[in-house]
């Protein structure tokens, strides 16, 4: 009688998802929240740069005459806990040029009879202690030589002399950059998952409250509507996270905050996005199903509360324990549990405290659960979404009654 009206599942889901994406991307809430995060992340990076600039290694130039002392300068610096990089210059003039251009912080021009240092304005405290200690060593060496001993041997003995410290509960060394990255990844993932999950729940209830769902389900299967909604909001959440994480990566690289850290920012960012997708799929399905049980926005909290708790507990563990003690049993165990893994595993990864197989197992467990959730959520959603009025019991929705 009229034109072909077939609409494949793929096309139906694309239409629903497309509407979600268009509506959400244009919403003020989305634009402002994203903008706020990008600004916070960039400002945070800037602040870190300004307060933490002393962590840059000190540049010390050494003239050819004094070249022999270069290794000793570095060794001494390490001894007093200052990072120093040395470079050899052909003569004093070349060294002074580096000083005036700011490419070197100090220039060693002679080692005997006394250690002679040239600086642009004054010697930094850190370099002061390095050179002070070096001068003492040099004086000692010349005394040792005078006494007929081998200054190199004595020097080595002195340089390597250190107290032996036995820690009762040794803590693996983590650098500040890794801890910061772990905490930031944890917070960002929590906010992103929480926000996107709430959007799904609200979207489902909005359709129920406004009764538009009846009109939609006259042409769509319930699972198509649910899938389109989850997919659309997932894409919006991912776009938001990509913008924020992108800003974080760009500002950390741009400001050079993490130059001294052993952090692979790119890999951490990619993993954060992977875990968002996996975590979102799990939480969105559960939240969509539970939200379909109620008919009013005010009632969302009563069904989604337990899920929110499922997010908060691993989040707290993730940012309060994991960055400082990534090997603790609770952290390791939770990083494998499907609903907790997206909050904890990326933190362990940021800290470099995890083996490849552990990530694979954890990711595999979570992904394996998704088809089960799709089935369960589809069933609950289909049975509950058209029942207006009071709250539908989960048992009834599962039983299909």
């Amino acid at each position, binding site marked *: 009688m*009229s034109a072909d009206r*077939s*609409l494949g599942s793929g096309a139906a889901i694309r239409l629903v998802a497309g509407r979600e994406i268009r*509506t959400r991307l244009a919403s003020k809430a989305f634009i402002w929240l994203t903008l706020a995060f990008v600004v916070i992340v960039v400002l945070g990076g800037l602040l870190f740069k300004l307060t933490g600039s002393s962590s840059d290694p000190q540049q010390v130039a050494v003239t050819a005459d004094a070249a022999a002392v270069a290794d000793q300068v570095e060794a001494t610096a390490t001894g007093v806990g200052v990072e120093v990089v040395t470079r050899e210059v052909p003569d004093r003039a070349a060294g002074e040029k580096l000083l005036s251009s700011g490419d070197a912080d100090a220039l060693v021009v002679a080692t005997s009879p006394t250690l002679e240092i040239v600086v642009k304005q004054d010697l930094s405290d850190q370099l002061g202690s390095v050179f002070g200690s070096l001068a003492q060593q040099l004086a000692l060496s010349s005394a040792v030589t005078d006494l007929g001993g081998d200054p190199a041997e004595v020097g080595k003995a002195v340089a390597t002399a250190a107290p032996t410290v036995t820690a009762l509960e040794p803590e693996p060394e983590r650098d500040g950059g890794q801890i910061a990255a772990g905490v930031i990844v944890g917070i960002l993932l929590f906010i992103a998952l929480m926000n996107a999950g709430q959007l799904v729940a609200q979207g489902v209830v909005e359709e129920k409250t406004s009764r*538009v769902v009846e009109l939609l389900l*006259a042409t769509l299967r319930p699972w198509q509507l649910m899938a389109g909604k989850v997919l659309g909001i997932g894409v919006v959440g991912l776009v938001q996270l990509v913008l924020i994480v992108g800003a974080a990566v760009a500002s950390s690289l741009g400001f050079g905050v993490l130059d001294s850290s052993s952090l692979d920012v790119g890999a951490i960012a990619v993993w954060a996005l992977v875990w968002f997708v996996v975590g979102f799929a799990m939480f969105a399905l559960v939240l969509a199903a539970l939200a379909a049980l109620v008919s009013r926005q005010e009632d969302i909290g009563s069904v989604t509360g337990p899920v929110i708790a499922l997010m908060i507990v691993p989040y707290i563990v993730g940012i309060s324990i994991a960055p400082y003690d990534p090997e603790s049993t609770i952290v390791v165990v939770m990083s494998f549990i499907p609903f907790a893994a997206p909050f904890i595993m990326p933190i362990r990864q940021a800290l470099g405290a995890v083996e490849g197989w552990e990530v694979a197992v954890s990711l595999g467990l979570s992904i394996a659960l998704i088809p089960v959730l799709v089935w369960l959520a589809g069933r609950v959603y289909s049975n509950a979404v058209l029942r*207006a*009025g009071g709250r539908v019991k989960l048992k009834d929705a599962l039983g299909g009654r």
Partner: protein
Amino acid sequence: MASLEIDALNKTYGSVRALRDMTFDVRAGEIFGFVGSNGAGKSTTMRIVLGVLAQDSGEVRWDSAPLGPDTRRRIGYMPEERGLYPRMKVGEQLVYLARLHGMDTAAARASMERWTETLGIEERRGDEVLKLSLGNQQRVQLAAALVHEPDILVLDEPFSGLDPVAVDVMSGVLREQAAAGRPVVFSSHQLELVERLSDRVGIVRAGSMVALGGIDELRTTEHRRWAVDGPPDSSWATGVPQVRVVESSGTTTVVEAAGTGPDDVDQAVLRAALAAGPVREFSLVRPSLTELYRDVVAAEAPADQDETEEGAA
């Protein structure tokens, strides 16, 4: 000629039987009025036709084939509970709904423009639905049922909440759609309207069809009655065989002839009246749909009325 057949639908909600062997058909080009008290099963039937609800047994067919998703996409539906996205713009919303029914973007846009003009809401295309007056929201709802150029119309209470002008617009649209060869089913509590619009009417009680047929057919009763405005006293009628006086007030007398009486009993009545004095008016009294409805629904067992469709759905 294709028809929409509703064949022996049954539906139970928990312990409540919402539909018992609900059966009727709506032919192409026909307006079918669906009446019954709240909870009688009208909305349940319509929702099953749309596939929004699953029946326990029975079948819905179009053109002799069971209804599937592709056929359902050709139905224009107006749910009892009105529903649109409150924060979506009218035009965008209608285009979206048309596309969900399988139209391509260009056709959907053209159809949206045509229907918003026909229904007088073209100025509101860029407004969010929630900013519209209730009457305009109803017009958008009707546009949502029509925007995908459906081949079948199923409208649950399309007239509720409409002002008289909108009622005329809606009636006109229903007539046009039927004239274009589409079957139109609508439910309403406004029985005068149903009587005026419908080609056929179905009265439902407690989940089954208790009266079904053309308006004239339904109004034909077993015992014929006439109203006679003439002689002031009703005693003239007592002499006519097989006729009794039903009521008498002033100069008007209503008489009833038993179904077994001869066909020309009306002439006998008229002659008797004329013999008693001048007759100013003599007319056959036929029950209105409202009276028919009362008769049919009054027979209803009170227990059946307790569960409303809404509560159980």
